[in-house]
């Protein structure tokens, strides 16, 4: 079984892989990291060689390794995205109560999540598109968004319809208020600070003005006074 992201081909996968690689480069050694479904899942395999980062899965795993070959996969060992995984030496297995004690108790250094919207005050919407959702599902999103020490979002900058996912205020129901610290998109890396979105880095060939044009909120230059 392969993740949805891995079944993609060509530019779409490459685009997502580039976002994930950018996240992976920024994770220091020794951090405990939970990865949401979608682009965040790709981060796991892109952590630079030799750097020890402990990936946690909310269904009771700490210390996941690279994805297994189909032949060597242990069918009893799956991650939160229901893909089979491997364990590093030093990994541990535990139950949901312990797993969410880690998450809610502030022991996870970083959670990387996908999002529907991120607001300039750090509000995150990633679980529901309507208060009258026809089939709502929250999973561990709220626990992770509230409990982890820091939240980074990894997502496309805009919807397929071209609408900005970085907004001045979330229209969708919130997952958690004021939690997002940084956003990685196909256009760049945006810090969420006291004054709002600050563009820290841009993808190759992308300008500040390009990013602003695709962002539904004011964009500041990172570290540059207004």
């Amino acid at each position, binding site marked *: 079984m392969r993740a949805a992201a891995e079944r993609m081909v060509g530019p779409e996968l490459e685009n997502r892989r580039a976002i994930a690689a950018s996240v992976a480069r920024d994770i220091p050694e020794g951090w405990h990291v939970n990865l949401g479904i979608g682009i965040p899942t790709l981060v796991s395999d892109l952590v630079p060689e030799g750097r020890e980062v402990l990936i946690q899965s909310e269904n*009771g795993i700490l210390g996941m390794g690279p994805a297994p070959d189909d032949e060597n996969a242990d069918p009893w060992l799956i991650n939160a995205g229901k893909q089979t995984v491997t364990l590093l030496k030093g990994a541990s297995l535990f139950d949901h109560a312990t797993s*969410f004690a880690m998450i809610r108790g502030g022991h996870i250094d970083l959670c990387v999540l996908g999002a529907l919207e991120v607001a300039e005050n750090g509000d995150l919407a990633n679980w529901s598109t309507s208060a009258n959702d026809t089939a709502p599902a929250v999973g561990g999103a709220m626990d992770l968004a509230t409990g982890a020490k820091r939240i980074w979002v990894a997502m496309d900058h805009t919807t397929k319809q071209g609408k900005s996912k970085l907004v001045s205020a979330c229209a969708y129901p919130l997952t958690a208020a004021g939690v997002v610290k940084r956003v990685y998109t196909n256009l760049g890396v945006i810090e969420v600070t006291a004054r709002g979105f600050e563009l820290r880095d841009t993808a190759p060939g992308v300008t500040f003005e390009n990013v602003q044009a695709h962002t539904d909120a004011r964009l500041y230059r990172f570290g540059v006074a207004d």
Partner: protein
Amino acid sequence: MIEKRVATAAEALADVKNGSTVLVGGFGQIGHPMALIDGLIEQGAKDLVVVCNNAGVGRSGLPRLMYLGRVRKIVCSYPRTAAVFSELYAAGKLELEIVPQGTLVERIRAAGAGIGGFFTRTGAGTLLAGGKETREIDGLPYVFEKPLKGDVALVEAWEADRWGNLTYRGSGANFNPVMATGAVVTIAQAQRVVELGDIAPERVTTPSIFVNRVVAVPYEYPYPAIEY
């Protein structure tokens, strides 16, 4: 001699009553007690409240129980895994209580551990805090959550002995150890039923006190992985 082993799922489930709250272990297809759910389908109890992280996948197991109209309400964090759920819910034929995953397991733990309720930051300021007591603690908003107790818990283990000690394999623990504590009657289906003493005391994950009945259900492979 204490003997919690019973011969069949049917025997283990014989006394499940209409209207019961049934805790069902598993995360995805792993640690999910399919044989006991099949047994519950056979057994006939209806008007059930099912508590499970997911709503099952495909058409067998929990989706079939729902399809047969035997489930009044489902309490879970991520029901969207089953098309049957979405159809019944959209048609107004199934109640849903959506609970964040960590709050779900903590509410069941509270029931099992004699905790009358607890405050969590999870969900504060969101739709899922609607109607709930809130409180500011050390300057941060918290939501009050109540214990969630089962009449019956159905869990899946790797090994079990005649006292009911359980171990789990891989990511198969997930909700099972907590659900085993949170119901009046806990029924375990186990891949391997072993002799008393074969599970070393420090290897026991669910101590026998939490388990009432054990059914051997050996199989060589978890239920087929289904993508969704």
